[in-house]
């Protein structure tokens, strides 16, 4: 056997599909996370309208405020694709700017959530008080935990960008963080529709066919 073989382990050596292993890992993880949030959302839907005592969703949910925070999170998704785009083109100023914007928007979203939670607590809605509280708080706070983790990750990447360690060559690192961020965003899209818009309507006397659930 030849003695001058260089043995190296890494994506570029053995790569049977031509795609980045990290990206594959992230997509697979997101598939797994689908089941995680799926179970929480299914719990919420199964327990919808089953609370025995108030406060009920229609008394507590504040759609205007949540609409704003939803919008902020949606736009942060735009921010991160732009940050990635400029990073790939090596336009570092714009890349850093948009990454910073995403972090700020993420923190803003968490701020809204903290405000919302304390507002609910003031109205007497806690995880302990009824089923709506239990299902609502576990789902939204675990989503919040995902966002917070994403913020920490993006801050780490931003620091790397400032130190010059993240550049157009390893833009894949930002790309997979971006995938995670978008996923958290699409989970919120579903949560906003199911937990907020549809649920806040539950107490309203149905004028027509209660298509899905209802009293």
């Amino acid at each position, binding site marked *: 056997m030849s003695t001058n073989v260089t043995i190296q382990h890494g994506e570029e050596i053995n790569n049977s*599909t031509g*795609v980045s292993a990290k990206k594959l890992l992230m997509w697979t993880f997101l598939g797994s996370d689908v089941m995680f949030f799926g179970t929480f959302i299914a719990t919420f839907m199964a327990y919808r309208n089953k609370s025995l005592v108030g406060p009920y969703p229609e008394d507590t949910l504040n759609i205007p405020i949540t609409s704003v925070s939803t919008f902020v999170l949606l736009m942060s998704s735009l921010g991160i694709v732009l940050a990635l785009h400029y990073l790939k083109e090596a336009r570092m100023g714009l890349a850093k700017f948009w990454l910073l914007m995403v972090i700020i928007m993420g923190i803003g979203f968490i701020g809204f959530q903290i405000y919302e939670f304390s507002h609910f607590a003031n109205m007497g809605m806690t995880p302990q008080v009824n089923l709506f509280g239990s299902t609502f708080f576990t789902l939204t706070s675990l989503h919040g935990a995902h966002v917070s983790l994403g913020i920490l990750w993006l801050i780490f990447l931003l620091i790397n960008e400032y130190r010059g360690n993240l550049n157009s060559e390893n833009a894949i690192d930002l790309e997979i963080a*971006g995938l995670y961020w978008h996923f958290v965003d699409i989970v919120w899209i579903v949560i906003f529709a*199911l937990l907020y*818009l549809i649920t806040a309507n539950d107490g309203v006397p*149905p*004028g027509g066919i209660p298509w899905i659930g209802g009293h």
Partner: protein
Amino acid sequence: MDWWALNYGGNMSLLKDLFFYQGNKWWKIPETTELSENPKNEHPFGGFLEKAKNILLILSSGKGHAGPVYYWIIAAILGIITLIEVWWFTVPELRYMLAPAMLIFSIIKFALVVAFFMHLRFDHKMFSTIFITCMVVGILFFSVFLLLSAFHGLGT
């Protein structure tokens, strides 16, 4: 004489593939001997995603690669849909259609973000396979579960 060959003539390639190994007789050896690179687009779960991808292609008229302007347009669409959602919620006459409408809107938003912001539409179809497989299993699974709980309560 082979029972299968007698009954099905020469037309038994599926059965052959499944049960007759890769050769003519079950004890025989596969015929492929060529060394070929792994196909770049090979993915484990068959080609059903091609169809899903085609639908996306029609939806998006298949532009090449995306630039900032393009992202801004997608973001604008997302923003507008969100506005419509909130508006829909505030109109009492539309409320009876609220749940299905919100579901449809959120599915559209979901698809837009996944296809364009997450690049699934332009990316290796392996990623679509994985993500859509998980989505399909999850959605089927939780639909069955919710159906059960809707018809029977949760058991009582």
